[in-house]
């Protein structure tokens, strides 16, 4: 095992350390900052990939910080699903970073450049830690780092809208963090430990059922705000549409997924299936909200005129999908939810980056202005179309596979309405996505709005867009790579 044992902690700390060192480099040579910022993320990706093949037989890798054994020390616990998610985070963050190199000059003034990359690395490192940690208070700490860097990144453009959107986000996000802290407090008071593996054992035995139930509800509320579950989603449309596009990509593609993953972990790893009586009622309520999210997000997306707002509302809808999968409490449902985190991350990041591409080349934000876009920007348009197809859930993209498992997982006696709502959400997605595709490809553009020659975004921006887009197709065609292990993991969780 040797050196590989340390990989997870390196994956987390290298970006964080990089974030601390970057300002010094920025002071010396600002031009090098984007490239320097890539180094930690690249190394994390490499470490993660190397680790993927070397996971120990037991199925998870446990690392004790400072060699303090749990439950006294903090444990980093990485299993297949966790590592998989970490790699997604690294990958998408890296692609967004490459996209940012040219794009960021559009929205952020030069003086803030270093700050942008520092915050970016903080965000990425914190997300990696968030996913990997096995200690619940550590989860809170990483969540805070995550939250703070995202508040700042939303505001980074510095203009009126950005600051206001960021503040709205903070106004909902900060109380949610406090709520999570309170929940952790309740959990600790009822069980006496902070280690998640230990907690799962003690939760079952503990006699303080009311306390635990309240703790669970608070967790759901706290992480639900971060994951933008209806009705705690109010901050998302503004924040995601006003943030710079690569940041929107990360927020929608990673942050909400990771927060939903936290709920998944809390539900299944901490409050294990043995304690269903604790979580059952809350999960039923969450199902209703998730269903409402699917419909609300879809309908609002149809009504939007601004492209990024539409994509943001689509995120709200898809968060509903993920939660409907989690609350289905079946192996297929949970596997579907996890696969949806992957494919929604890829597709949504791609959509936001495409929107960024349109803004970069032409400055167009409204959907109306995209009529006839494909003449000038075919690459962007085709990538957008492919990613939309995944969002709608049409074969053979990854979105179809996750939709299949989500619907199938909800196909039991008392959950069939949710299956129908998932399908309805898919129709709504078809409406808002196909409308944009129709405008792009089949409508003639306004006079002078688009040039007839292909003058698309620069390759450093197109490459990430296409990698993400091809990824949705790849993970749809070759879903057999991941689905069996996800199903096994899900069965194990249950």
């Amino acid at each position, binding site marked *: 095992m040797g050196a590989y044992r340390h990989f997870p902690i390196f994956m987390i700390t290298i970006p964080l350390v990089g974030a601390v060192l970057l300002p010094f480099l920025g002071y010396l040579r600002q031009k090098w900052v984007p490239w320097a910022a890539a180094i930690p993320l690249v190394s994390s990706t490499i470490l993660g990939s190397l680790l993927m093949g070397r996971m120990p037989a037991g199925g998870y890798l446990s690392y004790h910080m400072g060699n303090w054994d749990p439950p006294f020390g903090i444990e980093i616990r990485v299993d297949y699903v966790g590592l998989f998610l970490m790699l997604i985070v690294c990958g998408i963050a890296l692609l967004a970073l490459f996209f940012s190199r040219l794009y960021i000059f559009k929205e952020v003034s030069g003086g803030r450049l270093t700050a942008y990359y520092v915050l970016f690395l903080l965000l990425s490192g914190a997300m990696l830690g968030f996913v990997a940690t096995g200690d619940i*208070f550590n989860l809170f*700490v990483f969540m*805070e780092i995550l*939250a*703070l860097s995202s*508040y*700042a990144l939303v*505001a980074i453009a*510095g*203009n*009126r*809208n950005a*600051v*206001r959107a*960021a*503040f709205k986000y*903070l*106004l909902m996000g*900060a*109380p949610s*963090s*406090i709520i999570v*802290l*309170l929940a952790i*407090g309740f959990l*600790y*008071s009822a069980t006496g430990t*902070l280690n998640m593996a230990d907690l799962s054992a003690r939760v079952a035995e503990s006699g303080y059922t009311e306390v635990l139930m309240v703790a669970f509800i608070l967790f759901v509320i706290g992480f639900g705000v971060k994951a933008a579950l209806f009705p705690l989603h109010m901050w998302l449309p503004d924040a995601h549409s006003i943030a710079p596009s690569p940041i929107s990509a990360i927020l929608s593609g990673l942050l909400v997924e990771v927060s939903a993953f936290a709920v998944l972990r809390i539900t299944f790893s901490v409050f294990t299936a043995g304690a269903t009586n604790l979580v059952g009622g809350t999960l039923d309520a969450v199902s209703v909200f998730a269903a409402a999210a699917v419909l609300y997000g879809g309908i609002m997306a149809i009504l939007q*005129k*601004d492209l990024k*707002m539409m994509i943001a509302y689509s995120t709200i809808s898809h968060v509903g999908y993920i939660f409907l999968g989690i609350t289905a409490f079946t192996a297929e449902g949970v596997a579907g939810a996890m696969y949806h985190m992957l494919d929604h991350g890829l597709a949504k990041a791609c959509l936001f980056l495409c929107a960024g591409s349109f803004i970069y080349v032409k*400055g*167009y*934000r*409204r959907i*109306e*202005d995209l009529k006839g876009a494909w003449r000038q920007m075919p690459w962007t348009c085709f990538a957008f179309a492919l990613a939309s197809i995944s969002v709608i859930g049409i074969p053979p993209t990854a979105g179809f596979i996750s939709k299949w498992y989500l619907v199938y997982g909800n196909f039991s006696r008392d959950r069939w309405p949710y299956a129908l709502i998932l399908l309805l959400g898919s129709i709504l997605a078809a409406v808002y996505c196909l409308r944009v595709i129709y405008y792009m490809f089949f409508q003639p553009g*306004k006079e002078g*709005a688009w040039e007839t020659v292909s003058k698309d975004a620069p390759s450093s921006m197109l490459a990430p867009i296409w990698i993400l887009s091809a990824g949705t197709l790849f993970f749809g065609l070759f879903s057999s790579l991941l689905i069996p292990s996800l199903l096994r993991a899900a069965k194990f969780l249950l």
Partner: protein
Amino acid sequence: MRLFHNYHYVAAMLLFCIGLYTVIVRRNIIKKLIGLNIMETAVFFFYISLGYMDNGIAPIRVGGAQPGQMVNPIPQALILTGIVVAVSVTALALSLVILLYRQYGTLDVDHLMRQEEDEGEGEKGKGAEG
């Protein structure tokens, strides 16, 4: 009876609710931030009181102190971290407030929201023309 016995928990929750109320209801942004801080303090209070023991001594190994008599140090460690986090959040929030005030000239949330609606249409309407 239990309610009186756990008076510290009750107080913490009361404080939390006061803070939450302030965050939600008050129009002035600074007051909301103060409410946020009150919420945070309430949670810290809750944590520390978790570890309390009657006649407990400080958890420092000095002069033959017995572990069994010490108050629980873990919540205290957690809260130290929590305080740092709370300070950072407040700092970030205040810097955003400064920026907000500079841009909008008001600290009233309702005015900010109304401004948002007014210019929301205008701002996003500036697509091809902008």
